[in-house]
């Protein structure tokens, strides 16, 4: 077994150990055993840092990949298949190494931070236990080498997120949020599971490598539509976890959890798992699937950004910005800017974690005030927080010299390139949305910075109502139960909360990733994480350029989004043209080893996109810079110089304002349709069950039910019903027949004779005829 594998197993199991220890013994340990959590995560981080060092820094090999697996379930010699095992395994490649380091680092920082933030909570110990199991399952996702185990850890992540969102379960809002999150994720998981099933039903294996090998060998027996469907369905898992439209609704509510949890799970790692998963399955995604992904990403990015601009809760702004940024990543993958998307994943993880922890610090300092309208002027009180927060904000907004700039720019460049290659008008929608969202991002982050840190404190403006307006208000600790803004002065947070901020902020600067502040592609990350070779393009090239007519019906059959159809139809010819050109581009790229890791692409289309993206690099820089400046400028115009009064504007464009404030009414829509729908349906069915089904079986239902409760003669109906499905027949026959027993002996005699002579006449007639 490769030494790195052993290490990674240790890394994987350490957090589990922390979970087990803390869940059982936290009450018996000093400080509720938080040091165990932190210590263990420290070790885990050290180990993964070592892995990172060996794999990435020390001896980088583009094709580096070590895997190990063991038979988990042995199905024996299955008829028609032969010996069949379900294996569990671990794979380490460059991406894994980076993710390992990132996850453990952020998790460690959050652990550290929590020691300050959660201090005094009555379930303090359990909190760290939950963090432990979360880290465990997240690392599981990162390390898995097959779909089945990824699905397992996927759900486990969902569970830990469920537990942590509902950590303050006394709050109904928290309870609602955790349920919502779990269910939304389950919906996504269904899709993912079906996707897995499609692949399994073909190859009888879950392992990535085997699946891809089979695909590359063209062993996929079903139509390509099924393959596309598989891709889209697997992507649904990402839609759920990474809070993409239409399942994004849970993430903002998830802010009910403690703020460090929001930083760890709902900003940096778990939500990124979706993107990571799409990257893992990137090579088997057909162009059709990729188109769907790209559009969903773009739309999500835009929608979330528009919502974010009007939110007042500091964490909600960040939540929606997270959704929006995840949209970027998904968009990036969709357009084929693989490296860029993953790059953004990493950078975003750091600065968004920084932002959340910062907001946590603010909330902490403000005694659990989360509404930005009642903040202001904090920069004097909390300089550290201010500095780090601002730096991260700049990164998020994507100003040059920040990491966010590099990655976001790369994605947008890829989007432009993609649009160029596909050449369809509608595909330009994607970069356009991208850039527009960039502007919005800049705007709402500027707004946030200003509202929180500048101006004068507005705490006194807050309408003094006992339970804090909107119920999303605050984490109610036992210790920090009540809060009086007036008395306590706002002060900077303690070192164990400050240190993480600084580290994360430092990680949001460009030089960590790339020598050239303007080009991420020159950075080590994008060099080292090149776009992998697709297995579907190579195996059956017709997928890329399938005549529209033949694909559409099948696509419709598997229910892909409508725009892809039209899109596919539109671009099909264009691709025919593009393919050869792309081929030689790719060749060229390969020859004078340009910044694509000297990778030759088996799929011309992919090569073309990457190349075009590279070409569109500077365009992207210009446009995005302009957009960002516009955004920040607008923010200044509104909040600094007060030229435009936000309140008046809000009134002026009230419908739009409300539309954004109410998050495009998605919650209401879902409430009205799916949730109401299923509840009503369930009521209906259970009525049906108790009355109709039971009724049919028991004979006349109402009778049965009525008699069921009258202890007296009810059961005779039951029996009749049960015995021959119509309560009536037996029972009434009984009632009628027994009347024959008149008690008068002569009637008996008469009936005797009637019977005898009845027979006789019957036979008589039969003899006559």
């Amino acid at each position, binding site marked *: 077994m490769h030494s790195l594998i052993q290490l990674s197993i240790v890394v994987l199991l350490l957090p589990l150990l922390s979970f087990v220890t803390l869940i059982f013994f936290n009450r018996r340990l000093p400080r509720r055993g938080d040091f165990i959590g932190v210590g263990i995560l420290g070790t885990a981080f050290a180990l993964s840092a070592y892995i990172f060092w060996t794999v990435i820094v020390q001896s980088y090999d583009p094709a580096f990949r070590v895997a190990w697996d063991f038979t*988990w*379930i*042995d*199905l*024996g010699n*299955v*008829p*028609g298949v032969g010996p*069949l095992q379900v294996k569990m395994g671990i794979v380490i490649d460059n991406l894994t190494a980076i993710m390992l380091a990132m996850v453990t680092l952020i998790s460690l920082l959050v652990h550290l931070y929590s020691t300050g933030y959660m201090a005094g909570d009555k379930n303090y110990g359990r909190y760290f236990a939950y963090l432990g199991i979360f880290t465990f399952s997240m690392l599981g996702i990162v390390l898995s080498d097959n779909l*089945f185990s990824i*699905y*397992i850890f996927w*759900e*486990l992540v969902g*569970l830990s997120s469920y537990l942590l969102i509902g950590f303050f*379960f*006394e*709050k*109904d809002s*928290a*309870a*609602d949020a955790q*349920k919502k999150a*779990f*269910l939304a994720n*389950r*919906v996504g*998981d*269904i899709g993912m*599971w*079906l996707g897995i*099933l*499609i692949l*399994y*039903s*073909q190859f*009888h294996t879950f392992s990535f490598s085997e699946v891809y090998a089979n695909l590359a060998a063209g062993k996929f*027996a*079903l139509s390509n539509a099924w393959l596309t469907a598989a891709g889209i369905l697997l992507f649904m898992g990402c839609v759920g976890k990474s809070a993409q439209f239409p399942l994004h609704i849970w993430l903002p509510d998830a802010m009910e959890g403690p703020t460090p949890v929001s930083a760890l799970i709902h900003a940096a790692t778990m939500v990124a798992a979706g993107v990571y998963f799409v990257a893992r399955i990137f090579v088997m995604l057909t162009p059709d699937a990729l188109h769907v992904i790209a559009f969903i990403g773009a739309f999500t990015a835009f929608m979330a950004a528009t919502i974010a601009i009007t939110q007042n809760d500091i964490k909600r702004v960040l939540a929606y910005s997270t959704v929006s940024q995840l949209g970027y990543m998904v968009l990036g993958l969709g357009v084929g800017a693989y490296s860029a998307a993953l790059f953004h994943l990493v950078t975003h993880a750091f600065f968004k974690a920084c932002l959340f922890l910062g907001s946590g610090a603010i909330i902490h300092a403000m005694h659990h005030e989360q509404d930005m309208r009642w903040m202001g002027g904090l920069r004097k009180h909390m300089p550290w927080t201010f500095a780090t927060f601002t730096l991260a904000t700049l990164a998020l907004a994507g100003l040059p010299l920040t990491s966010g700039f590099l990655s976001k720019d790369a994605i947008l460049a890829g989007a432009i390139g993609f649009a160029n290659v596909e050449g369809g008008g509608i595909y330009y929608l994607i970069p356009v949305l991208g850039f527009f969202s960039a502007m919005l991002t800049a705007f709402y982050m500027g707004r946030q910075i200003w509202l929180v840190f500048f101006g004068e404190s507005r705490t006194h403006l807050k309408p003094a109502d006992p339970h804090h307006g909107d119920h999303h208000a605050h984490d109610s600790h036992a210790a920090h139960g009540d809060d009086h803004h007036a008395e306590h002065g706002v002060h900077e947070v303690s070192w164990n909360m400050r240190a993480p901020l600084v580290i994360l902020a430092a990680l949001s600067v460009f030089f960590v990733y790339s020598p050239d502040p303007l080009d991420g592609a020159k950075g080590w990350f994008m060099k080292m994480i090149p776009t992998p070779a697709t297995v579907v393009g190579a195996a059956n090239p017709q997928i890329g350029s399938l005549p529209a007519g033949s694909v559409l019906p099948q696509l419709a059959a598997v229910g892909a989004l409508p725009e892809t159809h039209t899109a596919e139809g539109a671009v099909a010819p264009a691709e025919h043209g593009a393919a050869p050109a792309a081929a030689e581009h790719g060749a060229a790229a390969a020859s004078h080893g340009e910044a694509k890791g000297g990778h030759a692409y088996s799929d011309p289309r992919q090569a073309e996109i990457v190349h075009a993206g590279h070409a569109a690099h500077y365009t992207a820089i210009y446009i995005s810079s302009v957009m960002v400046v516009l955004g920040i400028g607008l923010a200044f115009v509104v909040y600094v110089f007060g030229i435009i009064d936000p309140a008046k504007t809000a009134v002026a464009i009230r419908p739009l304002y409300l539309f954004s404030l109410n998050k495009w009414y998605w919650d209401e829509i879902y409430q009205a349709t799916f949730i109401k729908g*299923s*509840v009503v*349906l*369930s*009521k209906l*069915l*259970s009525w049906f*069950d*108790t009355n109709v*089904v*039971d009724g*049919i*079986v*028991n004979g006349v239902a109402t009778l049965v039910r009525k008699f*069921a*409760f009258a202890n007296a003669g009810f*059961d005779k109906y*039951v*029996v009749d019903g*049960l*015995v021959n499905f119509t309560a009536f027949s037996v029972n009434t026959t009984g009632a009628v027949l027994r009347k024959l027993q008149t008690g008068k002996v002569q009637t008996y005699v008469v009936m005797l004779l009637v019977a005898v002579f009845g027979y006789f006449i019957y036979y008589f007639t039969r003899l006559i005829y």
Partner: protein
Amino acid sequence: MLSLIVFLPIIAGLIILAVPSSQKQIIRIVSLLAAIGQGVLAFLIWRGYDPSIPGITAGPGGSAFGSFQFVEKLSWININLGALGSMNIDYFLGVDGISVTMVILTALVSAIGVLSSWTIQKQVKGYFILYNLLATAMMGCFVALDFFLFYVFWELMLLPMYFLIGIWGGPNREYAAIKFFLYTLFGSVFMLLVMIGLYFSVTDPVTGNHTFSLVAMATQSNFNVAGAIFAPENHGWRLIAFIVLFIGFAIKVPMFPFHTWLPDAHVEAPTPISVILAGVLLKLGTYGMMRINFPLFPEVFQASMYVIGIFGAINIIYGAFCALAQQDLKKMVAYSSISHMGYVLLGLAAGNSEGMLGALYQMFNHGTITAMLFLLVGVIYDRAHTRQIDKFGGLSSYMPRYAAVVTIAWFASLGLPGLSGFISEAFVFVGAFSSVTTRPIAIVSVLGIVFGAAYLLWSLQRMFLGKRKPDAAYDLEVDAEGHEHIHFHDWKGKLDLDARELVMLVPLAVITIALGIYPMPVIGMLTSSINKLVQVLSPVVLTSLN
């Protein structure tokens, strides 16, 4: 060995018969000892079982001894029918992969049932006699390899169940009891006719006589009586027989639309009986299908896989929806059983190894998990004397241990990875999706995953999270240093789980988790039998794998 494990409870019952009914503790202990004895035997069987031997059909030379294990075969009845030769009925026990797991499950659940019967105060003597009778009957059904013997045990279950529900049940128990009795009897009387018909249609290759041996019946070439009612060419009657048997077993499962006895029975039955009912009895239906219904009429099974699958899907989704609407916690759990047994049906309908394996493993897991669920329902019912979900709220603040176990059980029941329920459901889907016949059905039934999560999480939230409901079934008081305490009206015992309850629950929880992490201890015993069963069920499946 099998005879011992079967009849141990009845022996205990006879001993109890001799104990004066005032000696409640002795009675309890006797039956507990019997249950423990069963457990030990089950463990020995588990240890001694050789997973490589497939079972299902007769081994080399047409005798069961080659393929089944722990076989006990004695000539029991041998009566002269003149021209029709002699009617031979054997006392014929044996286990293979699909029954040995059920034997272990039965031993486990009935032991737990005894523990949870500890609180029964009314007519303890009669209760435990009937209980032991029931235990014997259940165990017998799983190890009987002679149709006649199987039928005897099968019917023997009805009466004790009737009284256990009818005497120790809830307010509406008469209704539930007679309903259960008539339903199941209605299902099984037709089975009797089919059994006789099979007897006249099958000969034992070894003796050449007609036989009731299920092992002989499982081989189609033994249907060699010319002109017999179920002879291979007699398609019409074979179809009818299949349907009759299927309905007979489906009523036990219970399969929509024959399921309505289940909620009533569960709601009225005392906790231990619910545990037995859900934990073991329901499995008898699907076990019967795997042991009798399908192997005897494989070609009909092939033709009807689709229908069975559809019924499975209906069970899954319909059950989930009904559960979603329930206010009574126990009723919700009952409907969840219906939903979960739907997975079993679906897996069986797939007709391939993955599906069958999933189905059988699901039977085992559902046994343990549902047992846990009903025990937990019983715990809260003992304290609050109500099961209305809305009468609680915020319990996990006050009963942390209870809440923890509930969380495990609930999540196991909604198929969370790492807990045993997940693996079986996953395999059911894998199988159902892999077989072309049931693929569309599988796609639909996947919805069950979501709705399953929905009703479970919703009930969890309403009962354990949030704050105490204003009309809750318990009082809340805040002591000096601001700690909140609750107490239930007229409940003297420990507020949180007490020792006895933990003894019942913890093993189940441990099993659930252990089998979720590493299922091979159970699955390892099944695979060869399952693969054999799939072969018996026919080559048609194999060609249709993609």
